[in-house]
C-alpha cells in the first residue's frame, strides 16, 4: 500500500534496525494506560499454564491404571509422575481400574470446563479474511487469542480482544485529531485517501506490536520453561535421552524458523500488494462511477480489474504454495523429533523402565515445545509489517499541526468592534517553491464589500484563505485592527469568519446537521432564514423530511447548484462579522444570485464581506475591487474608478464580459 499512497511529505520510508527499536519502544507506551487489563491477562496466563500442566498426565493414568490395569501403589511410589500429580495418585490408591478411569475422567471433565484441552490450537474468534486491507485490518483491530479453551479461555480471549481494541481506539483517536489539525498546506499535499488509510488500517498495528513484544514472548517462555522443567524432573533419571531431544527440538526450531518465516513473508508481501491493487481498482471505479461511465471508460475499467484480479489470484496461489511448503517442512522436521521420541519411549517400554502411558505425555510435550519455539522464532519477522505501519502512524502524529494558541499572546480583539483588515506587502510561496502571491497590499473594513477579481490561477483563493489563517503569509503581514493575525488565537479568529468554499463540502448527514456545523446552536428558524437568503429554502422544504432529510455521498440527491446554495446558507448561518464567499455564485442562476446579493447588501453594515467573483453583476456592487494577476495587485478601486481607465485590466475584463466575443 505504501507504494500506492506514497506522498510528497512522507518521503523517507526505509527503516533501519535502530528505527525499528525506537518505533517499538514508542508503541509500547500505549500499553501503559491499559495496564490493568494487561495485568489481568498476565494473571490469567499463569493460571492457564498452571491448570494445563496436569492434563496429559491424566491420559497416562487412563492408559496405565485403567486399560493396562496397573495398580497404583500408596503415594504413587515407583511411578513416573511429576510432583503435582501426587495428590491425585494418593487419593486413587487402591482403586480398581474402572473406578480409576471414572475418577480420572471426572477430574478431566472439570479441568476441561475451565481450560479446555489447551495447547495445540489457540482459541480465537477471527472473522473470514480476504486479500484486501479492509478485512485484514478488521481482524487486526479486534485481534486476540487464548492458549486455553473452556471458561477461563473465553474470559482470557474477551480480555485480549478488549486490550487490542482499546489500544487501537486510543491510537486512532490521537491520529485522527492530529491529522485534522494539520495545516491545509500539508493536507492538500497529502491525499485524503492516505490520511484515511493511516487512521483505519495502520493504527491497529500498534496493538499488534504491543502484544507481540510483551504477552506472546512471556507466554512462550512460561510454557517452554514449564514443559522442560517437567520433562527433566520426571524423565531425567530414567530416560535422559527424552530430555535431550526436548532441548534440541527447542534450539533447532528457534534457529531454523527465522529464514523460513522471512521467505514466507516476502512472498506474502508481494501477494498483498497485488491484492490491494485489485481493491484500489475497485475503489477508483466506484468513487468515480459517473466519470467512468460518462467518459466511456467502463470497458477499460473492467479489463483493468480483470487483469488485476487474475494477477492477485496468481500471487495468492504462490502464497498458498509457499505456506504449504513451509508447513510441509515443519511437519517433517517435527516427524524427526517424534520418531526419535518414539524410539526412546518404546525401547524404554521394552526394557520395562517406561509404560505405554508415557507415549501421549511425551509426544504432547514435544509438540507443545516445538510449536511454541516455532512461534517464538517468527515474532521478529512478523513484526516487520507492523513496524512499517507504525512508522506511518507516528510520522503523521509528529507532523506539524496548526498552533492552537499564538506564540506571542497579545491583546484580545473585541469582535463587536468595527473591524479593519489590512494586507501589508503580503507574499506567499507554497512549500514546493511555487509563488502564489507577491507584495499584496489593501485594506477593508466592516460595512464594506471587497471583490477580488482576476484571471483563474491569479491567486484569488490563496489570498482569501489567508484571512482565517488557513495559510500564513511567507512575507509581509496581515493585521486586524492593527493586531497581527499571527498573534491572534486561531480558533477565536475562525469563529469570527464564515468561509463559503468554491467547492461545496457537505457531509453525509441531515440537512440540519450540515448547517449546524457552522453554528451548533442554530434553531430551525435561523436555518430557515439563512436558507431563504441563499435560495435554498424551497428545495429543502420540498425534500421528504425537510431539514431532517439525509443527504448522501457528499450531497448525492441534490444538484450541484443546490449543494452550493446549502453551502452558502451554512456560511450565512454562522452570523460572523467577516464573510468570505469564494465564487459562491458560479453555480447559481442569475435570479437566485440577484436575490442573494440584494439580501446580503441589506445587512451589510454589520459585516465585512470578501467575495471572489467573475460575474460582473456581483463585482460592480462592491465597495472596493482588487484586481489580481499572477499573484500581484494590478489595480484597486471601485467599479466607476476602475472603469475610468480605458486601458486598465479591469476595463478590458468588463468589456469582454459584457459583449462576449
Amino acid at each position, binding site marked *: 500500500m505504501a507504494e500506492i499512497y506514497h506522498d510528497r511529505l512522507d518521503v523517507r520510508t526505509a527503516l533501519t534496525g535502530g528505527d525499528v527499536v525506537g518505533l517499538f519502544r514508542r508503541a509500547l507506551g500505549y500499553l501503559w494506560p491499559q495496564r490493568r487489563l494487561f495485568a489481568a491477562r498476565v494473571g490469567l496466563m499463569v493460571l492457564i499454564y498452571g491448570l494445563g500442566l496436569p492434563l496429559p498426565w491424566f491420559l497416562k493414568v*487412563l*492408559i496405565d491404571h485403567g486399560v493396562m490395569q496397573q495398580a497404583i501403589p500408596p503415594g504413587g511410589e515407583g511411578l513416573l509422575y511429576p510432583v503435582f500429580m501426587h495428590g491425585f495418585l494418593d487419593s486413587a490408591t487402591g482403586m480398581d481400574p*474402572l473406578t480409576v*478411569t471414572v475418577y480420572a475422567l471426572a477430574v478431566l471433565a472439570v479441568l*476441561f470446563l475451565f481450560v*479446555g*484441552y489447551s495447547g495445540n490450537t489457540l482459541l480465537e474468534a477471527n*472473522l473470514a479474511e*480476504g486479500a*484486501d486491507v479492509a478485512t485484514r485490518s478488521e481482524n487486526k483491530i479486534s485481534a486476540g487469542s487464548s492458549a486455553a*479453551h473452556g*471458561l477461563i*479461555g473465553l474470559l482470557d480471549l*474477551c480480555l485480549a480482544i478488549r486490550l487490542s481494541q482499546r489500544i487501537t481506539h486510543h491510537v486512532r*483517536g490521537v491520529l*485522527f485529531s492530529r491529522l*485534522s489539525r494539520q495545516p491545509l498546506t500539508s493536507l*492538500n499535499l497529502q491525499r*485524503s485517501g492516505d*490520511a*484515511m488509510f493511516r487512521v483505519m488500517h495502520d493504527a491497529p498495528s500498534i496493538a499488534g506490536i504491543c502484544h507481540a513484544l510483551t504477552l506472546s514472548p512471556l507466554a512462550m517462555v512460561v510454557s517452554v520453561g514449564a514443559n522442560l522443567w517437567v520433562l527433566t524432573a520426571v524423565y531425567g533419571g530414567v530416560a535422559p535421552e527424552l530430555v535431550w531431544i526436548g532441548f534440541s527440538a527447542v534450539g533447532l526450531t528457534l534457529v531454523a524458523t527465522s529464514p523460513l518465516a522471512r521467505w514466507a513473508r516476502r512472498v506474502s508481501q508481494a501477494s498483498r500488494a497485488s491484492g490491494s491493487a485489485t*481493491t484500489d481498482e*475497485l475503489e477508483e*471505479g*466506484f468513487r*468515480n*462511477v459517473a466519470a467512468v461511465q460518462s*467518459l*466511456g471508460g467502463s470497458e477499460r475499467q*473492467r479489463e483493468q*480489474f480483470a487483469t488485476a484480479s487474475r494477477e492477485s489470484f496468481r500471487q495468492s*496461489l504462490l502464497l*498458498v504454495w509457499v505456506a*504449504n511448503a513451509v508447513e510441509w517442512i515443519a511437519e517433517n522436521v517435527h516427524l524427526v523429533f517424534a520418531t526419535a521420541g518414539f524410539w526412546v519411549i518404546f525401547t524404554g*517400554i*521394552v526394557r520395562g523402565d517406561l509404560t505405554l502411558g508415557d*507415549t501421549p505425555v511425551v509426544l504432547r510435550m514435544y509438540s507443545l515445545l516445538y510449536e511454541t519455539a516455532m512461534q517464538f522464532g517468527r515474532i521478529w519477522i512478523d513484526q516487520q509489517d507492523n513496524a512499517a505501519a507504525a512508522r506511518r502512524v507516528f510520522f503523521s502524529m509528529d507532523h506539524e499541526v496548526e498552533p492552537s494558541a499564538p506564540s506571542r499572546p497579545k491583546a484580545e480583539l473585541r469582535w463587536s468592534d468595527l473591524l479593519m483588515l489590512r494586507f501589508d506587502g503580503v507574499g506567499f510561496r507554497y512549500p514546493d*517553491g511555487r509563488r502564489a502571491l507577491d507584495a499584496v497590499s489593501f485594506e477593508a473594513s466592516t460595512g464594506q464589500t471587497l471583490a477580488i477579481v482576476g*484571471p*483563474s*490561477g491569479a491567486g484569488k483563493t490563496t489570498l482569501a484563505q489567508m484571512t482565517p489563517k*488557513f495559510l500564513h503569509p511567507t512575507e509581509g503581514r496581515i493585521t486586524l485592527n492593527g493586531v497581527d493575525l499571527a498573534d491572534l488565537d486561531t480558533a477565536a479568529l475562525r469563529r469570527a469568519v*464564515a*468561509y463559503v468554499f468554491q*467547492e461545496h463540502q457537505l457531509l*453525509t448527514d441531515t440537512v440540519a446537521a450540515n448547517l449546524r456545523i457552522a453554528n451548533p446552536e442554530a434553531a430551525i428558524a435561523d436555518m430557515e432564514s439563512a436558507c431563504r437568503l441563499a435560495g435554498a429554502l424551497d428545495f429543502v422544504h420540498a425534500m421528504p423530511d425537510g431539514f431532517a432529510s439525509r443527504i448522501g*455521498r457528499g450531497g*448525492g*440527491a441534490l444538484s450541484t*447548484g*443546490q449543494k452550493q446554495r446549502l453551502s452558502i446558507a*451554512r456560511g450565512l448561518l454562522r452570523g460572523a462579522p467577516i464573510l468570505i464567499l469564494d465564487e459562491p455564485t458560479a453555480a*447559481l*442562476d*442569475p435570479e437566485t444570485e440577484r436575490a442573494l*446579493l440584494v439580501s446580503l447588501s441589506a445587512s451589510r453594515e454589520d459585516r465585512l464581506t470578501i467575495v471572489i467573483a467573475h460575474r460582473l*453583476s456581483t463585482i*460592480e*456592487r462592491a465597495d472596493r475591487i482588487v484586481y489580481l494577476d499572477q499573484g500581484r495587485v494590478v489595480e484597486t478601486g471601485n467599479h466607476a474608478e476602475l472603469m475610468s481607465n480605458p486601458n486598465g485590466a479591469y476595463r478590458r475584463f468588463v468589456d469582454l464580459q459584457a459583449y*462576449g466575443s
Partner: protein
Amino acid sequence: MTAEVDALRLDLKGLGRIYVATWPYLFAQIGHFLALLALNLLLLGFGTAVGFLGFDVLMDSVGRAEPLSAMQAGVMLLPEPGYVGVEALSEAARLEVLFRFLIVSAVIIVTTTSAFTLLAMYKVWILQRVNQGLRVTMVRNAEDLSLRFHSRTSAGDGIYRVFQDSAMVTAVVDHVVVQPVIAIAMMALQIAVATLFSPYFAFLMLLAGVVVVALALVVTPRLRTWSQAARRANAELFTRVQETFQGIQAIKAYGFEGASLRRFRDESTTALDTAFALRRDFATLKVVVSYLLALLLFATDYLATRYVLEEGAVFGASLLVLFGMSVTQWTVAVHQARASRIGAFALHFEELVRVWCYAQDMAVGLGRAFWLLAQQPEVSDPAEPVDFPAVREGVRFSGVGFGYASDLPVLRSFDFAARTGEVTALVGESGTGKSTAMALLLRLFDPDDGSVAIDGVDLRSVRVADLREHVAIALQENVLFPTSIADNLRYATPSTTDAEIREATDVACATQFIEALPDGFETVLGVGGALLSTGQKQRLSIARALVRGAPVLVLDEPTASLDAETERQVFANLRTWAVGRVVIVITHRMSTIRTADRIAVLADGGVVESGTHDELMTRLGPYRDLVATAEAPHG
C-alpha cells in the same frame, strides 16, 4: 434498496439461493470437484489405515509382545518365523519391529503429508478458477448499475462494502460449499469406522452431532444480527473518516475539529463494541461445542476401558482388518485407535462449526454480492445493435419523461434538438433538469417516456459502449484522478499521442498553465486535483472531453470558474473545433449564451422557448426576463 439487499439469510432458503447463484460457476469445474472429494476420502482412508497399523504394532506388539499378523510382517519386510504365530515376541524381536516400523512410518508420513499438501493446492487452484469468473461478473454488474443506485448510498459505504464483499466471494464458495461437503464426508467416514469398534460409539457421535447442530442453529440469528451491526458501524466510521479528510477545509473554517473528533470517537466505540460482541458470541459457541465433543470422547473412553477390562470382542473386527488392524478382542491398541477416530471426528466437527460461524458473517456481505450477481444492468445493449449514425443531422429529444424516483419527475415531455455544426445552449434555473437531460444522452439512464435519438436512430438501438465512445462530456463537477495530467487526459483513450493531447489543451487554453507546473504534463495531481485552482481543473476537464474527438460534445457548466477572457478564448477555439459536430453547452453565463447558434430555455422539466438570441429577444418570453435579470444595473 439496501433493506432488500441485506435480507439474505443463511437459512435453508438462503443457502439454496447461494447454490443456485454459484451453480453455473461451480458446474464448470464439477469434474475437478469430484476428483478432489474422491482423493480426499482416499487419502483419509489410507491415513486411517496407517494410524491403525501404528497403534496395533506399537502398543500391542512392541508394548505388549503380541505377535504380528502376516500382513504386518510383510509391510515391514520381516520374515514370518519368530514374528508371526508365536506365543510372545522376544525382546530383540520387539526392538527390531520398533526399528522397522519407525522407518516404514516415516516414509509413509512424508508421502501422505506431501499428498495432502498437493491436494490443498489443487483445491485452491479449482476455487480460483471458479472465483475469477464470479468476481469479474460481479464487478461488471456493479459498475453497470447506473447512478440511480449509486446516488443513494454514500461513497464510503459503497466502497467499503463492495471491496469487502468482493473479497468475501473468494471465500464464499469454499466456506459454504466445498469445505462443508468435504467435512461432512469425512465425518461420515469417521462414524462408519467408529461403528466397527462399537455401534454405541456411532450412536453417541450422532447424539453429540444433533446437540451441536441444534446449538449452532439457536445461536445463529444472534451472530447474524451482530455481524450486520458490526458492518454497518464500520461502514459509518469509514465514511466519517473519508468525509472528514475530503471536507477538511470546511471543518477547519467552522472550527468543527473538536466536534468531529468526538463523533469519530463515539463511532469508533460503537464499531469496536459490536465487533467485540460478535466475536464474544462466536467464541462462546466454539468453547461450548468443543466441551461437548470432549464429553463425547470421555464417554467413549469409559466404554472402551470397560470393553478392555471385560476382554470383549471387537464388533467389526473382520472389517477392521481392511484398515490394517488384526485384532479380534479389545486391547490397548484398539482403545487408542478408537480415541484417534473420535478425536478426528471432533476436529472435523469443530471446523464445520467454525466455518458455519464465518458463513454467518459472510452472509451479510453475500446478500449484497449475490444480489449484484443477479443484477441485470439497468441500461443494456440491444439484442441486435445498429451502427452508430454519422451524426449528420444532430441530437433530438422527443417527448422525454424521466424521474429518479417514480413520484418525482425531473423531465416532463421534454422536446429538444441540437443540430450538427451548431453550438446549442441549454439554459434555465438550477434544478430544472439540464444535467439530467445530458445523463440521458449518455444513457446513464433510459427515459421513462419518449425517446432520445441521433440522426433519427433511437439511442437504445446502439451499443452503450459505441454511444459513449461518440459522446464526450465535460462534467460540472471536475472529477480528476490522482494520476498525472497526461494520464488524466488520456483516461478514455489510452492510445492518444502527445500531439493530440496538446491540441486539446490548446483549444481549452490549458497548455500554458500546465507547462508552468514543475513537471508539466507529467505533474501528478492530488485527490480531486488538489494542486490546481477550480478554473484550471475546469479547463483540464474540457480538454479531456476534447481529446477524444467525439462527434457529440457536452459541456456542463464548463466555464463557471473561468475569467471572462479565458472563457471567450475557449469558446472562440471551440467554434472552430465544432465544425461537423454537435456541441451542447449548459451555462448561466450571458456572454456564452449570447454567442450560441441556438438557445433552449428550460423550466419545470420542459423546454419553454427556443431559438437564436435575437429571435428570443424579440419575444417577451422567459428568455428576455432572464437576460434582463442578468444585465440589470445593480446598486
